[in-house]
Each structure stands twice: as structure tokens, then as C-alpha cells.
């Protein structure tokens, strides 16, 4: 009987430990295969619009109602926050010459697979500038106590990439060192798409 409180404490600790370990497991490495069609469509749509005007979109809330829209001009980056139903959003898109229908379509598709951030990222290989499309997906599992938020990050490259025997993204064909993006090591999905799980979505 004396040991009863101790047992309860141990049980609580074990439960907390199990919860803290659960987070990574909910991310499926099959995520890309399951959502390939939508992901490819988002990537292509984003690339097309981004060619006309550089921009990025982030969902800033958990209910996918608010977006942060960053529009890059030659001299300045404009950062706006909108409710996706707000008429101001459309006015702003028109003001900067962004296609309203395509952006609305992009936002809807992003929301449908819980993609919270899409951006174009520059990187350098042998001094040459390259760019990739960076997407963050918020996982659907309920947030468990004692766990930090995790994001499933996908990077889409224009050229085939190089990987080591463990499928980790390398800096180049001759460079055997790992390519780090935003402090994370990436894994191969296919020659042009990689993924990682990160605590930061951007």
C-alpha cells in the first residue's frame, strides 16, 4: 500500500515518455506516394506563378484560415497577413499582378493536404545559383503532451540529386558531404524530391 503513490508516479512518467516518443512515428515515409498527385500539382502551380512574380505563402494558424503572403519586388519584400476569405486579399493580388484564380487554387490545394508553407529557396553548387521549391506539411495527429510540433518538409529540385548509401542528400557528385538545408539533413524520395522531419516549418 505504501508503494501506491510511487507506482502512480512511475506510470505517469512512462506515459509521458511514450507520448514523447510517439511523434516521429506518425509521419509516414509513404506520405509523398499517397499525396503525390496533389503535391506535384501544388509544386507546378507554384513554380508557374513564381516565374511571373516571386512570392511565398504560409498558413499562420492551426485552423488554416489565415495566410501570410510575402511578395518580392525588385526593391522590397511586402509582407501581408489575410484571412483567406477577406476581399483585401484579392485586391492585393491584383495590385501586384498576381493571378487571383491560381493563387486561390494554390491556397485551397495547400489547405487540403495541410501544407503550411511554400517558398522558393536559393542554394549554391560550385558557386552556381540553383533553386528549389520548399514545402512544409503539418501532420494531422493530435498534439500529444510533452511533444514538440513536427513538420514534414519536402524539397523539390530541378536537377537530379546525389545521395549516399543511406539515401541522405549530398552536396554534390564529388562532394561526399551532406547537404544541410535550414539545419536539417534530407532523405531521398526520388532523384528530385527529398524529405525531412523538422521542428521548424521555414
Amino acid at each position, binding site marked *: 500500500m505504501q508503494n501506491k503513490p510511487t507506482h502512480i508516479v512511475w506510470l505517469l512518467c512512462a506515459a509521458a515518455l511514450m507520448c514523447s516518443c510517439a511523434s516521429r512515428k506518425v509521419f509516414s515515409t509513404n506520405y509523398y506516394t499517397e499525396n503525390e498527385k496533389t503535391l506535384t500539382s501544388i509544386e507546378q502551380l507554384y513554380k508557374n506563378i513564381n516565374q511571373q512574380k516571386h512570392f511565398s505563402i*504560409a498558413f*499562420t*494558424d*492551426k485552423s488554416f484560415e489565415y495566410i*501570410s503572403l510575402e511578395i*518580392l519586388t525588385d*526593391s*522590397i*519584400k*511586402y*509582407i*501581408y*497577413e489575410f484571412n483567406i476569405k477577406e476581399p483585401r486579399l484579392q485586391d492585393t493580388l491584383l495590385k501586384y499582378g498576381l493571378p487571383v484564380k491560381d493563387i486561390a487554387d494554390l491556397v485551397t490545394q495547400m489547405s487540403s493536404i495541410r501544407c*503550411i508553407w511554400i517558398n522558393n*529557396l*536559393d*542554394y*549554391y553548387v560550385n*558557386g552556381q*545559383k540553383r533553386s528549389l521549391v520548399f514545402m512544409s506539411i*503539418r501532420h494531422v495527429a493530435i498534439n500529444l503532451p510533452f511533444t*514538440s*510540433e513536427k*513538420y514534414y518538409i519536402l524539397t523539390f529540385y530541378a536537377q537530379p540529386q546525389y545521395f549516399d548509401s543511406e539515401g541522405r542528400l549530398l*552536396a554534390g557528385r564529388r562532394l561526399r558531404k551532406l*547537404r*544541410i*538545408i*535550414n*539545419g536539417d539533413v534530407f532523405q531521398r524520395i526520388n532523384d528530385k524530391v527529398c524529405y525531412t522531419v523538422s*521542428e*521548424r*516549418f*521555414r
Partner: protein
Amino acid sequence: MTKPVHLLFTMKHLLYTCIVCFTCMLHVPVLANDRDTTPLSTQKQALAYLDQQGELKASNFWPKVVPALFMQNLRKNVEEPFSIYEGRSTNFCAYAAFSYLPLHNDPLTFVTFMVKLYREGKAVYGIEYFEPSREVKLAAGTLSFKGELDIRPADQLWFLSLADHFKGYLNFFDKHYNPGDENRMWAAVNFAKFNRMVRNLFNYEVSAIGSDLLRPGVRDMYEYLSERIQTGTIALFLNNPNLYKKNHSKPIIGVPTHFVILLGVEEIEEDKIAITYWDYGFRSRQIVSPKFLKKIIFGISHIVKKTAGAK
């Protein structure tokens, strides 16, 4: 009755000392203002200096920094001062932020220092003597996966030398450079260190409010900033996760981690303020509420040029 000689002597000297001190108090600021001015130069002078250098020879001190790329980088800094970029995931934001001052107001001193540091491995900037450590000299030119900083070796050299030279309490446990330290506490900058660097390197008058943990007690932030931006440069010490949201969990404690240069502040509606700031090699304009603005600002440095005859 006569006073003892030693007492007379003491009083006389005390009187002299008081007169000398009083005279110094009156005259030193006047003399100082004549001499103690912020050095200024133009973009044209800096470019002419770079042209005079011709082809730079590879430096033994900085083996990984290619001289042609180094010069190209310096030229770009002078021609496009907003383009200096701290790199992705590094702790160089403070060094990049205050580089705004020399690149806009005194590019000649900046490039002269950089060329000397490259050639000789040591140089003086303001009242600071730089002789970076061997590890830093080997690292400059090798930083990678940091976006445009990968191809800007002069900026790598500049940021690494600054982080190596200036130390604050945040660097207490990590004072010596190891590969990867540019992303760690080795390169971190607290508010007092930032202001000290500006004073010592560029000789500006810096009046700062705020701290590393507590926000400044300013009632009307818009009024405060818009008033001071008229007379000098403003650097803000901000709570970065609030400005650039990186995850969806609410931070338990908000602490400042990011430095930006405020370029403009404008009241656009009843409850909306447009702030234009410079960071990450770009100018950004963002519309925020006065409450949000007050929430993210932990430190404000008002940086004013010292001019001859100024009071």
C-alpha cells in the same frame, strides 16, 4: 592664530584641483567635438580605393578566400549596400545589421580595413585591433549551405572576425571557434554588445533603451520611433519567432534574438502601422498593430553621427 602649513598646502591643492577639473569639464567636450567626429566617406571614394588595389594576391592568412571573389564581394557591398546577407541559419544577424552603418556612411574605411585584414591578417577598425584566430582564418571562405553567403567570402571573413573578436556574456561558454559555431552561441550577440560594437568600431553616439529580457517602457512606440528616425539610424532588437513565425506552438517565454535596421515607420490607419526594415539582405515592409509592435521590440538603439561642434 595661524593654520598649520600642511593644512594650507592641502586646501590650496584642493582648490587648484577643483579649478582644473571645472576647466576640463567646460573645455574637453568642446575640444572633443572638434576632433571626435564619425568618419564619413562616399561610395565613389570606396570604389576608387578598390580600383587602386588592382589584382589582389592570394593571402596566406586566409587560405580559403579566393582574392578575386573577395574583391568582387567588397565591390558588391559598396555598390549594393542592402545586399549584405547574414546567411541562412547563422547567428550573424547583428553583424549584418550594423554593417548598414559603414556601408552607407563610410564605405572607404570599411573596404580599407577589409583589404588590410586580408593582406596582413590583422588590422585596426575604430578603436579595435583585430587579429582573428587561426581557426577563423581557416573557416572563412568555407561556410556553405547558407544561401548567398556561400558565395560571399568577404562577408564570411567580416562576420567571423567580428564574432571572434567581440565577446559578451552569451559567448561565455563558447569562446573559441569550431566548425558550425556560426550557428551557435559563439556568434550570438546581446543588446549591450551590439551597442558597444557600434560605438567602438564606427564612433557613433548610441543611445539605447531596452534589454535582453525586458521590453523598453515606451508608451507610444510609433511616436517614439518616428521621432528618432528623423535624427539618426535605428536598430531594433526583436523577438524573431513573433516576426518570422517558425512553428505553430506558442513560445512560453518571448526573448529577443534578431537585429534589424528600421528604415521607416508610418501610421496608415487607426490601428495599423507599416514598418519598413532591413534584414537578410532585403528591405521588408510589414503592416502590424501597435500592440504587436510593442510586443516584439526589446531594444531600440538610436545611432547618431558625431559631428564637429555638435552638443
